[in-house]
């Protein structure tokens, strides 16, 4: 946080779990604690979103305050002394989780999100096995009309992250809370299924959902612990978003967000998020081909490369440097573009290399 222009940014000192901390004024308790490596549980908070302070799982005990305070939305003040895992805090968190489970399907074993579910992690952390409350559970239909995103609002804990990410990051406002109280859920207007005339299918709501309520259908069916993540750069537009390719065995199963990516901070568009099925398209050609009498025939790399090298050199030799042209590609890597220009200039001895800089 910066103060008014010219003013020194003030710092404040406080004590968290008996440890001294010095941070710039305006820092939340949550961020100050994270600086110390203290992990305060959160459900509705996300660093890329405005605070909602609605789940209250992040509460901490501040000396001299009658009530527990939400760490995600409370500024750390000079001289504050606070506890992040006191008895009162643990009791409060246990109660919150217990209440959340009271209206949550008891199907962790078969839930896609298992292992990557924040609710499950925190229940484990606080020893909440099942709800002690008896009550009705919602019986809402699962929405799975499109090939990318599935919504099972029975698993929703109403943290609102999906609504905020859609409004604040995608600035699309496709979904919102509907009704209040027990019947409350997240839906598009008039409860319609997600459709491309109002939703961009960016999938960011699915990525940020702490439970299995909104699922990315691509990675469905592969347990989180079976997925290896490989950070890479999107192959489509010039924004250069980064994401993690999720690999199970020797197969890419989908994409998850990289919140530390400099260009996109976890955001993606529909192409970056949901394109990976094209990698396994049956239309891909997997052997070199040589056309003989107008018909494609499979060839070995040796045959194909000998032919290409021979013919290009021959034509260049016979007809001069205007006789061959090379198109490089804005889809290929720097290394590939560099090597192809070197081959064109040094091997074919012409500057006739270009690429579709406009597309």
């Amino acid at each position, binding site marked *: 946080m910066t103060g008014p222009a010219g003013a020194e940014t003030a710092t404040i000192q406080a004590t968290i779990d008996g440890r001294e901390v010095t941070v710039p004024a305006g820092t939340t308790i949550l961020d100050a604690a994270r600086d110390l490596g203290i992990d305060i549980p959160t459900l509705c908070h996300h660093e890329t979103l405005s605070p909602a302070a609605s789940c209250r799982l992040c509460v901490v005990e501040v000396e001299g305050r009658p009530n527990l305070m939400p760490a995600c939305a409370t500024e750390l003040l000079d001289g504050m002394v606070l506890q992040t895992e006191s008895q009162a805090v643990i009791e409060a968190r246990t109660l919150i989780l217990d209440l959340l489970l009271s209206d949550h399907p008891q199907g962790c074993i078969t839930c896609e999100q298992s292992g990557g579910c924040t609710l499950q992690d925190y229940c484990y952390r606080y020893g909440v096995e099942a709800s002690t409350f008896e009550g009705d559970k919602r019986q809402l239909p699962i929405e799975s009309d499109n090939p990318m995103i599935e919504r099972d609002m029975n698993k929703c804990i109403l943290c609102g992250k999906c609504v905020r990410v859609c409004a604040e990051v995608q*600035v699309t406002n496709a979904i919102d809370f509907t009704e209040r109280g027990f019947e409350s859920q997240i839906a598009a207007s008039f409860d319609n299924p997600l459709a491309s005339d109002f939703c961009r299918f960016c999938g960011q709501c699915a990525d940020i959902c702490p439970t299995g309520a909104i699922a990315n259908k691509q990675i469905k069916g592969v347990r989180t612990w079976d997925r290896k993540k490989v950070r890479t750069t999107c192959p489509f*537009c010039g924004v250069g978003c*980064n994401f993690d390719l999720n690999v199970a065995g020797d197969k890419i199963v989908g994409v998850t967000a990289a919140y530390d990516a400099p260009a996109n901070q976890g955001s993606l568009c529909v192409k970056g998020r949901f394109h990976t099925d094209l990698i396994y398209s049956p239309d891909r050609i997997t052997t070199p081909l040589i056309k003989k009498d107008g018909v494609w025939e499979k060839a070995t790399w040796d045959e194909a490369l000998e032919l290409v090298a021979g013919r290009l050199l021959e034509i260049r030799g016979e007809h001069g440097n205007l006789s061959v042209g090379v198109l490089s590609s804005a889809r290929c890597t720097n290394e590939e573009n560099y090597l192809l220009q070197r081959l064109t200039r*040094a091997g074919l001895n012409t500057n006739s290399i270009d690429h579709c800089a406009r597309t």
Partner: protein
Amino acid sequence: MTNSIADIVGNDVLFIIGSNATEAHPIIGNKMKQAHLRGAKLIVVDPRRTELAEHAHLWLRLKPGTDNALVNGMLHTIISNGWHAKEYIDERTEGFDDLWATVKDYPAERAAEITGVPVETIVAAAELYATTRKAGIFYTLGITEHTVGTANVMNLANLGMVTGHIGFPNAGVNPMRGQNNVQGSCDMGALPNSFPGYPSVLDFEAQKKFSEAYGVQMPQDMGLRIPEMFELAVHGTLKAMFIMGEDPALTDADANHVRKALENLDFLVVQNIFMTETAKYADVFLPAALYAEKDGTFTNTERRVQRVRKAVEPPGDTKPDWEIILELGKRMGMDWDYDSPEAIFEEIRTAVPQYAGMTYERLGTVGLQWPVPTEDHPGTPFLHEGRFTRGKGLLQGIPFQEPAELVDDEYPMLLTTGRMLYHYNIMTRLSQNLEWLRPYELAEVNPADAERLGVVEDELIRVSSRRGSITTRITLTEKVPPGTMFMTFHFKESPVNELTNAEGDPVTMTAEFKVCAVRMEKEPAAESHGAAAK
């Protein structure tokens, strides 16, 4: 871009001209909308009512192809009201008088007449942009894909310099590059007029450097640009082509001409992942791996060099493009021993001064923005701090020129082309997910034009230009003004580039995709015609 993507949210004014960012650069589009939520004012210049136009403080719905007249009108307004940055102009630029000599003929009234944008709106846009410190210009193909594309770009630089908006954070003149690695392909010298790192191929020192580095005397003359290659192929002078990763038969203007050129070649090699329209004309097809199957780097629109990492093995007999080129090079007498993309990158560092300080290790997971001259240089989030690369920024007057092709009685509609969210060029057509979202072209037509023609939503119509004739389905929308229609170039079933005009910008030869004159007709055989059907 002179500035960084992360900057956008902190801008107070975004002057967005000819860029449908929410479709073409979705994450940048999001940041523009986020800036608007934060209170920034958007000035959107676009004939179409794009999503950004909905968020705009000022929407300038100009006639397609008249951008330059608008910018001249703004320059005139700014200078005659004294809103220009006099000190900055004195200290950092030259040619102000030359600029004024041209611009003085474009008072807002005349600009309004040419562009169809009201005088008050032009004046308001000029004042808002000029008098806000954190004001950036953003543009894409909309601006460059005109016969006057280079002139448009130069005039936007004029606008940025005259108002002193270049060389600071949250400002600058920001071309948003289209494909993922256009920036990198240019940096690497995959261009007929420049070596890696941009020295001219005619520059004696550079010729010497690369002759020594490659052990071969470098060619002495300019190479052919894409449209020239096709032209010479039609004439039979150019006899062989090697085409890696592109599909010009679908994506280049005047596709029928391109097909004629490809057909006429003695020898065509296509290296790609599937049988593209272009590959159908090839003699040899070399199957390449996809980005997820190889290592390397891409350079994004903010000059950030980022890693591409291999996640899985290439399928079947496919190979990464670099390996194919390497094998081919060896067979063409190159004594190459690169054993990895990283080894090639190490050579790039010596060839391209902007990349000298980068290593794969330094790139890590966040990359580096060039120029990075040394290994302890942190990278460059915005360009031209304190001074321009060439010393003084050159202001040059750019008179307005009519688009090359105008409507007439036979071809009374303007067709503009561009991108949409769900597809990227052609590769995304292989994804079932993205196909589900948009399996065919849906040309945008104004309801008034549709009514005149007696066609309805989703109907198959015929669109013809002076160069070709295709069919497409339509959607009726006020996004396009009457007399204008819009199509993308992703669908081989509705190959819009059979219609577009290959007449190029005299400097870059970028074709005039943005504006071409067409005629729409009811398609009598609509029922039986399967071309654009699902």
